[in-house]
């Protein structure tokens, strides 16, 4: 048996298909990854999979398609992710036949609840293999499970596995192979339903036969029991209003107890019978470490405090640990820029590579160490099972704004990236709750915002410690930046609930997985994946936008400007030359007498090792240098300073007269209330496809504007020193925070808008999200700047 990836399987004949099904958080994705060799994300919380994922592996030389389906507690589909499960199992999706085998994975420590879904799946009349996962946790709870007895009671093969530790996988594959390649009889659940339910079902069946409606029994049963459910709605659409009348009539057989309750009672009776001999429970429930920890982690007061402490530690570490690596990366790009400048002659290509590519992409890659540290912590928190507890704590806050508790996981996911967050809203049954969650999810601070926060905090917030040495001001500010999104999302959600959405409220039920020691391997893999994507992005879209911004800021590169400043340089040389020559000749008359021009003089000065060393010695030399040398040093320094001023003015003129500069003038009146000048405005506009582009574009623009020199070779120092045209500093604390607020609230991500369009099947909502977030960001950014100026921070 060998593993294969999807790319190898596009042959003409359809491979055999297996559906991987189970309750949420039972280890489906771990098992899927182990079987297919793919590396889908595994989260220790329910709702990681909201759509099917497909992988392939081979058994007996034949290609097998494995589909990882969203976790579900039953086949009574109401939310979008649950409809995916039932559609695939009964062969409704993609108009395909039902799957060849269903691989059900169950949590051994929670068999009673897990077997509810099993009982429904056994009624589909499809061969089944049952994987008994998390047997170690069951053992820690004192449960003794007899897998053979369970297999015999269920009439299906049962295999013990530990998906995360890859135990029992070979046995599972053998069992799948046996069932798949033999004419095996599907397992059956012998559930005895009450008479009224049977009568209703029989009535529907007879109506279908009489009216030649080909509806599968399992669909008919689900339509009968799940009132207003997905199957009922679909069948009414297919079979017409008469079927709807029949449903009402069939349901009238229910007397004192509703059909859903009758179904549940019948299934749990069957489950009790199945487990009777197969599971031995301890006389008294064993209190696990998870139970003890949950007493504190989910406590109203301590839980919230612990959450804040954990977050504070995470953000502290980002600043404390990353600095040395960041300095190394910065030095590397500085060296690379110097190297390229020395190889390629001065001109457009050199500027493109040094200012556009190295200045832009290098500027953003500096933040890679900090991003890696943040994701390392997120991976640990996720893997150990803390995130559902955080969601539980957030539920209290979210319920204030009338948002469903089910919104917690999508919103938490959005802290990493809004795209899986928006997709995770599929678990929300209430359509309007889902819509509001989708609208506010992009407000959560995703990883792309991190470089923006990091650069401005690094440049403008002092690296000071608070409360002794326990807290770092920069870390606290970063935590505050992350809270901006959620503190704005709560009132926004409340407003939307009162206006565009109804007040319907659904109950939040979430299963807490057991705590476990996080896997270092998983964390490193996760960090590697994230860093790889970040570098990939820096090397593709960020690189391209940086080059385009460079082109707009470099061209037309007028000759008139060049001539104007060349004349100025010549005049400066002519004015300085006689005085400098006189002083130099006092030092070494024979050597310098033939230096007839300023250039020749400077070249000779550079060649003269004795003079160079003397010039160096005049800097703080003991005893004091001679008068002639001091004079030479002053004249030489003044000349270089004047030359540098001319170069800065020249680059400033080039930038102002460039296409970018001209466009910037148009938008300057709009961004001025935020304290921005046209350079920040243009960098922000260039960042609308993806927000992290701002760092690279600012790097490019400041590089071209000659704001980065020997003293401010990195972007952070360049930001501190950049000046407006009137000579005042451009980036003050109010300006820096107005930029942070703008980027925290603005929807600068084309991919997020695209995913909202796909989920809502309309361009109306992404357009709405774009407009409201941009307007919100603009207003809040103006307020931040104005309040900062009023407080005297400017």
């Amino acid at each position, binding site marked *: 048996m060998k593993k294969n990836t999807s790319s190898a399987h596009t042959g003409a004949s359809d491979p055999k298909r297996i559906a991987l099904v189970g309750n949420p958080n039972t280890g489906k994705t771990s098992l899927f990854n182990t079987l297919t060799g793919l590396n889908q994300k595994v989260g220790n919380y329910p709702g990681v999979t909201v759509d099917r994922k497909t992988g392939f592996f081979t058994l007996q030389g034949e290609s097998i398609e494995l589909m990882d389906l969203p976790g579900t507690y039953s086949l009574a589909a109401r939310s979008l992710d649950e409809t995916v499960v039932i559609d695939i199992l009964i062969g409704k999706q993609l108009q395909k036949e039902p799957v060849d085998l269903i691989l059900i994975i169950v949590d051994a420590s929670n068999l009673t609840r897990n077997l509810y879904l099993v009982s429904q799946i056994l009624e589909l009349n499809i061969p089944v293999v049952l994987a008994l996962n998390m047997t170690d946790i069951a053992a820690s709870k004192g449960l003794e499970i007899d897998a053979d007895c369970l297999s015999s009671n269920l009439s299906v093969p049962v295999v013990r596995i530990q998906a995360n530790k890859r135990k029992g996988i070979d046995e599972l594959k053998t069992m799948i192979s046996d069932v798949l390649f033999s004419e095996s009889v599907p397992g059956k659940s012998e559930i005895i339903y009450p008479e009224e339910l049977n009568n209703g079902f029989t009535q529907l069946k007879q109506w279908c036969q009489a009216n030649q409606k080909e509806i599968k029994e399992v669909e008919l049963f689900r339509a009968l029991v799940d009132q207003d459910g997905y199957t009922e709605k679909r069948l009414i659409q297919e079979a017409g209003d008469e079927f709807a009348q029949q449903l009402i009539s069939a349901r009238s057989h229910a007397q004192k107890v509703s059909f859903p309750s009758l179904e549940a009672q019948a299934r749990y009776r069957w489950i009790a019978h199945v487990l009777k001999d197969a599971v031995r429970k301890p006389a008294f429930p064993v209190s696990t470490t998870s139970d003890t920890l949950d007493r504190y982690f989910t406590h109203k007061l301590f839980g919230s405090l612990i959450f804040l402490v954990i977050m504070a530690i995470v953000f502290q570490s980002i600043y404390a640990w990353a600095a040395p690596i960041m300095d190394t990366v910065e030095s590397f790009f500085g060296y690379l820029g110097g190297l390229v400048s020395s190889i390629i002659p001065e001109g457009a290509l050199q500027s493109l590579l040094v200012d556009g590519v190295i200045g832009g992409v290098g500027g953003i890659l500096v933040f890679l160490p900090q991003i890696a540290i943040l994701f390392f912590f997120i991976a640990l928190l996720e893997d150990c099972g803390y995130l559902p507890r955080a969601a539980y704590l957030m539920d209290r806050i979210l319920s204030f704004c009338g948002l469903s508790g089910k919104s917690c996981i999508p919103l938490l996911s959005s802290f990493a990236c809004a795209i899986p967050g928006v997709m995770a809203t599929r678990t929300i049954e209430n359509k309007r709750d889902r819509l509001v969650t989708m609208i506010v999810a992009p407000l959560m601070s995703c990883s792309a915002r991190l470089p923006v926060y990091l650069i401005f905090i690094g440049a403008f917030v002092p690296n000071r410690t608070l409360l002794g040495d326990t807290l770092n001001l920069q870390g606290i500010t970063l935590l505050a930046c992350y809270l901006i999104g959620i503190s704005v999302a709560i009132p926004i959600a409340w407003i939307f609930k009162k206006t565009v959405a109804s007040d319907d409220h659904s109950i939040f039920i979430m299963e807490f997985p057991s705590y476990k020691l996080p896997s270092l391997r998983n964390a490193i893999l996760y960090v590697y994946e994230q860093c790889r994507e970040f570098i990939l992005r820096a090397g*593709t879209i960020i690189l391209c936008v940086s080059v385009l911004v460079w082109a707009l800021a470099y061209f037309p590169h007028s000759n008139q400007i060049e001539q104007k400043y060349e004349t100025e340089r010549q005049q400066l040389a002519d004015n300085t030359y006689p005085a400098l020559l006189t002083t130099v000749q006092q030092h070494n008359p024979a050597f310098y007498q033939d230096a007839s021009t300023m250039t020749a003089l400077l070249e000779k000065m550079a060649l003269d090792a004795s003079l160079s060393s003397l010039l160096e010695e005049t800097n703080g030399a003991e005893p004091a240098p001679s008068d002639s040398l001091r004079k030479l040093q002053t004249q030489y320094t003044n000349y270089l300073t004047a030359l540098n001023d001319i170069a800065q003015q020249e680059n400033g003129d080039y930038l102002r007269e460039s296409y970018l500069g001209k466009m910037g003038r148009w938008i300057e009146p709009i961004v001025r209330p935020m304290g921005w000048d046209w350079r920040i405005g243009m960098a922000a506009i260039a960042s609308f496809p993806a927000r992290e582009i701002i760092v690279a574009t600012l790097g490019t623009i400041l590089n071209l504007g000659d704001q980065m020199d020997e003293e401010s070779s990195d972007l952070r120092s360049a930001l501190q020193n950049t000046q407006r045209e009137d000579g005042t500093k451009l980036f003050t604390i109010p300006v820096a925070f107005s930029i942070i607020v703008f980027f925290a609230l603005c929807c600068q991500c084309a991919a997020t808008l695209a995913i909202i369009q796909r989920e809502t099947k309309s361009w109306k909502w992404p357009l709405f999200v774009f407009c409201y977030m941009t307007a919100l960001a603009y207003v809040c950014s103006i307020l931040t700047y104005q309040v900062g100026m009023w407080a005297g921070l400017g």
Partner: protein
Amino acid sequence: MTLENTLTFLIIAACAFYTFRFIVRTLRGESDCGKCSSCDSPAILTKNNQRDKNINR
């Protein structure tokens, strides 16, 4: 046009083309956003759908 200018022009043209393609494909939900390889991103789903279409054919 010198070799240096030709190279500069070609790099800019390639970047402009890639950026345009990125925006169009992203808005059409065809492009991998690149932020998160692990989720079922638009690209992965599109690939799945495309493969399903191929198999059906």
